[in-house]
């Protein structure tokens, strides 16, 4: 069974070590590769009510598993300094925050704005789609890799994406495979 989770559910999750059971940080920002459809890492906050940004980051390779209640890592050495991390994680492109981006088809139709990112729970780190706020109200889901281009302002998707807007996460799970077949990606 594929269990899907949104990035907003991952924000604030504790980062816990498998070996020591220690709660060492919490998730701040989620960084993903839209072309590969993969999570590449997360930035961190220190634990505590008013604690700020954690100096170290967590690349996807160092994540043991992403669960509903915690992000699991082997031990404290899984956290690395920005200098030792892949550039996309160590120095994330903060201007490419997709939240609030307009989702436009290549034909110029607006499907809404990006409200969230949908990931597969577990160790794969696969990103399967976006949650969008529709122009007429309400939310929907579109499968990934849907985007032809992406910036901090707009996400341009193929016209076919309009047919795959789903009303719930269950529908998205089923739509992803069909979408990839139609796009010739599988």
């Amino acid at each position, binding site marked *: 069974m594929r269990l899907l989770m949104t990035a907003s559910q991952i924000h604030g999750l504790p980062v816990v070590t498998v070996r020591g059971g220690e709660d060492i940080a919490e998730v701040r920002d989620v960084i993903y590769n839209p072309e590969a459809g993969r999570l590449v890492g997360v930035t961190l*906050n220190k634990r505590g009510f*008013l604690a700020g940004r954690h100096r170290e980051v967590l690349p996807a390779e160092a994540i043991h598993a992403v669960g509903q209640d915690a992000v699991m890592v082997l031990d404290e050495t899984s956290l690395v300094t920005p200098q030792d991390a892949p550039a996309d994680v160590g120095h*994330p492109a903060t201007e*490419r925050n997709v*939240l609030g981006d307009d989702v436009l088809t290549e034909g110029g139709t607006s499907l809404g704005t990006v409200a969230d990112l949908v990931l597969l729970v577990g160790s794969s780190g696969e990103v399967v789609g976006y949650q969008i706020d529709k122009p007429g109200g309400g939310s929907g889901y579109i499968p990934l890799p849907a985007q032809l281009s992406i910036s901090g302002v707009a996400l341009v998707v193929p016209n076919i994406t309009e047919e795959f807007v789903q009303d719930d996460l269950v529908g998205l799970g089923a739509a992803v495979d069909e979408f990839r077949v139609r796009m010739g990606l599988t």
Partner: protein
Amino acid sequence: MGLIGWLILALIVVAVTMLVFVVVRRRRRGGSIIATRSRR
């Protein structure tokens, strides 16, 4: 300034303090979804 005036002033100070607190906390918490730079 009468008692009512002081009460209103105190309420304004509390409201502004709470607003600043919430904004600062939200900024510190982050919560962005960042796409990597395109390799194409």
